[in-house]
């Protein structure tokens, strides 16, 4: 990158830039906009180039042998590129993004991004039945990471931009800005309350705007307005949830099983392995061309009610097989798009049967295809909230939302029961990566302050003398002691401060005065009471202890912070986390603890 001489910069510009770098709020705002626009444009270029390339590989009226040859050659080309130059560009991109976030401080190289772009373009254009969304997320996150690294941002800042880029990419790839935000938080971060929410929203909206600016306002699927024909129909949607959940499990298990088999093959064969996937896809595609590629045109047909039961059942089965083999053999591409395809076909099958059996009580199969997409997505990707919002955004149809939620939850539950490890996590584990997942993150948050709260000791009075207080706190394990007047809690006083005052002979000093001196010596001007609430996580209590130095905190009522409900100690918190030895610690002998 061309360096600009610092001396050549006008002082005002230099000051402006330095201010921007110091004020992280502003920098974050600016970067969200820039990353949103850049990622949006890159993803649009990716979609358009892949489309053009596909049109070249499959000209109108092309012979049937092309459908065998093109995916095979495409897989051969990408297999070599992936093996030789871009090993990180293999597969979906979501596990790699999470690995970068949690294992490499958010660092992704520009080479990987370019490799992902090139390999996925070739792979998807040649008809490999994988999705473009996962790779787009990797590219988006990668670009955000590259920019952050080039700007010399801190480790935390680089990490925080990973979901920002991911959301921007998904918003453009799927035309679903809200679902993109949710996905970035739910799947990439694993935390819907992540503090990056604002930046993620801004980047997603910017990217979506760019998409519309270039490609116009058109949903990914045009769907007729479906509605619930009868309340009894919810039963049929529940059945769809079960079938969708089972299909998801079959798909995930087959994919993981095949991938495990491929991974056992000699490493030297890594470059040729994708060809196995490409050839399988080609042979399937020769007889059933609908299976080739992402298949969104076929999904749209089904959504519009163009369904022949036998065909959709076969397509669902073939897509599960083709996608599993293609992914497992190491081709570049994701499972987002295939999930929707499989879901649509499974939904259409269930819907066609339901409509055949109960024509007056059920909507057409198109409505079931729509709900099936969400069910399969929830079952395979395991992001139930994202899937509901995504289907709503894809189709812009609100009327089907209740059946969608029912089916999604059932599919999610079945998938969770029968395939405990979610697909992205299982893929990472197969690669030897153990990334944090939502369940493991959420577990400590279940430990609330209430689990470690104990009864409060008899409070000291602020008007009490130090000598009286010293008698009360003798032989206690409490490092700090609550002080309360007739209106309630006023603060905490340390036992060692009382002891020190007694040793210095200031026995007539009041506890209130002692607390005042302690605050001043610690440089604390505020009279804010250090406290926690019963419903807060234990990690919050630890953070409070770190901030004010007390190893004992009062647990107070949310209605009135002067009403003390109990106390929580450092030792109790350790015990709640399962660190039993902490119970034996004596703070008076180890004041530094």
């Amino acid at each position: 990158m061309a360096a600009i001489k610092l001396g050549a910069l006008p002082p005002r510009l230099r000051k402006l830039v330095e201010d921007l770098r110091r004020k992280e709020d502003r920098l974050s705002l600016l970067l969200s906009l820039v990353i949103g626009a850049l990622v949006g444009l890159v993803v649009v270029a990716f979609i358009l180039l892949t489309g053009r390339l596909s049109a070249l590989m499959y000209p109108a009226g092309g012979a049937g042998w092309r459908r065998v040859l093109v995916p095979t050659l495409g897989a051969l080309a990408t297999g070599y590129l992936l093996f030789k130059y871009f090993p990180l560009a293999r597969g979906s991109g979501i596990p790699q993004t999470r690995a970068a976030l949690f294992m490499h401080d958010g660092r992704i190289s520009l080479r990987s991004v370019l490799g992902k772009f090139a390999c996925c373009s070739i792979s998807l254009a040649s008809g490999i039945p994988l999705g473009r969304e996962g790779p787009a997320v990797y590219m988006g996150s990668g670009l955000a990471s590259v920019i952050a690294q080039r700007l010399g941002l801190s480790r935390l800042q680089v990490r925080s931009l990973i979901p920002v880029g991911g959301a921007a990419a998904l918003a453009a790839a799927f035309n679903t800005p809200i679902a993109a935000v949710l996905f970035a938080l739910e799947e990439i971060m694993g935390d819907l309350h992540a503090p990056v929410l604002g930046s993620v929203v801004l980047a997603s909206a910017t990217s979506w705007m760019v998409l519309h600016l270039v490609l116009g306002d058109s949903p990914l699927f045009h769907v007729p307005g479906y509605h619930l024909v009868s309340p009894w129909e919810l039963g049929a949607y529940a059945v769809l949830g079960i079938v969708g959940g089972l299909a998801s499990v079959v798909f995930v298990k087959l994919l993981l099983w095949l991938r495990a088999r491929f991974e056992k093959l000699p490493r030297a064969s890594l470059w040729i392995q994708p060809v196995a996937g490409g050839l399988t896809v080609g042979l399937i595609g020769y007889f059933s061309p609908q299976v080739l590629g992402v298949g969104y045109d076929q999904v749209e047909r089904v959504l519009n009610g163009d369904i022949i039961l036998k065909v959709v059942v076969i397509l669902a089965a073939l897509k599960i097989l083709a996608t599993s083999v293609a992914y497992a053999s190491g081709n570049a591409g994701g499972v987002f798009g295939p999930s929707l395809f499989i879901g649509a076909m499974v939904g259409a099958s269930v819907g066609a049967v339901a409509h055949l059996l109960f024509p007056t009580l059920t909507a057409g199969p198109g409505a079931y295809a729509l709900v099936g997409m969400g069910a399969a997505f929830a079952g395979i990707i395991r992001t139930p909230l994202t899937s509901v919002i995504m289907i709503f955004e894809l189709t812009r149809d609100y009327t089907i939302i209740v059946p969608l939620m029912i089916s999604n939850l059932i599919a999610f539950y079945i998938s969770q029961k029968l395939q405990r490890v979610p697909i992205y996590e299982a893929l990472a584990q197969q690669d030897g990566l153990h990334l944090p997942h939502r369940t493991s993150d959420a577990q400590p948050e279940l430990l609330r302050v209430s689990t470690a709260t104990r009864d409060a000791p008899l409070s000291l009075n602020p008007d009490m003398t130090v000598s009286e207080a010293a008698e009360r706190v003798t032989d206690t394990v409490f490092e700090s002691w609550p002080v309360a007047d007739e209106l309630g809690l006023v603060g905490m006083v340390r036992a060692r401060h009382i002891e020190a005052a007694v040793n210095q002979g200031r026995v007539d000093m009041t506890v209130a005065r002692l607390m005042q001196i302690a605050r001043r010596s610690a440089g604390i001007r505020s009279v804010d009471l250090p406290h926690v609430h019963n419903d807060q996580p234990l990690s919050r209590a630890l953070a409070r202890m770190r901030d004010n130095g007390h190893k004992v905190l009062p647990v107070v009522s949310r209605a009135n912070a002067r009403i003390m409900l109990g106390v929580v100690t450092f030792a109790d918190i350790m015990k709640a986390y399962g660190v039993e030895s902490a119970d034996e610690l004596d703070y008076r002998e180890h004041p530094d603890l």
Partner: protein
Amino acid sequence: MKTPVVQPAPIPAASVSEFIATFAVVLAVIVALFLFDTALARVDIRGRKSYAAREFRTGEQLLAQGKIELAIEHLRTASTLDDDNSAYATALAQAILADNRPDAAEQMLLPLLERDPTDGAANLAMARVLAQEGRTEEAKSYYHRAIYGLWPRGAHENRIEARFELIDLLAKINARQELLAELLPIQDDSANTPAQRMKIAHLFVVAGSPQRAVAIFRELLRRNKPDSAAYVGLAEAALSLGDFATARADLVAAQKLSSDSTALQSRIALADSVIALDPTQLGLSQPEQYRRARNLVQMTLKSTRTCLTAQAPQVAVALDSASAFLVSPAPADGRAQSIQQALSVAQSLWGLQRTRCAAAPPDGVLALIQNRIAQ
């Protein structure tokens, strides 16, 4: 907006110049990508539209050849490639309808109409779907929307076509008042072809306005060379008006112009029968009038008994009254009164038959004479 960064960051390692340079490069890439994407999108859209147009033409040709399944494939490709062009989706829906899948066609048309409720072609297609499904009330509504909707090309012709289809539907369900209401606005349209005017005139007869039909048929005969069909139309209108002698004359004139006279022969025979049985014909003697009136009661009673039983009191009274009239001796004097009585009995029986019988009375001699008497 909340910052995604937790801890206060020190001034990062990169220099100010590197920071600015990175931003400058990124902005330059954004601009370049925007231009590239826009150009690529244009090429893509142009290519898709052109391919879609080719597919559409092929689909239309195949549809015209009756190769519906193949046509559907091509039209679907056109519709998917250029989803902004509602004509493609409408044509696809029409093809699906031709494939006898009105449900699927309806599903295709709904989003089009949601997007643009004034789309004339989509409204017409939806009207056809609903008409095929037997949902005539809804079909009528969509036909009206098609007639008053927007047509990018050939608006007048398409509106006329939509109106004629609506007219056909109304004629089929025998909605005579509505049919008349639809015929009146187009009867004097100078753009109508002779064939269309002929159809309008025929439909005026169906709608119960034979005088208008006569005027149009006469005008057609005046403006064009003598035509058998126009004479047949005139004859039908005359029959409807009860002018049986004129009808016979017109049918004979038509027969002279027609190469195939078998059908006309039967209509002439019908006209002869009516003339022979009509009790209201001018110039008949009173005994002859009475004989014909009595014969009419007998024919009507016979026809009524084929569909009505004497279970309902009103029907029983009417049947008894007719039977009593037939067994009563012929009056020696006051025949005019007896003729009136006979006609009254026949009319009331006919009225009952029309209102109570499930099947409409056949359009034959009896119906023509009864209509004449009613006039």
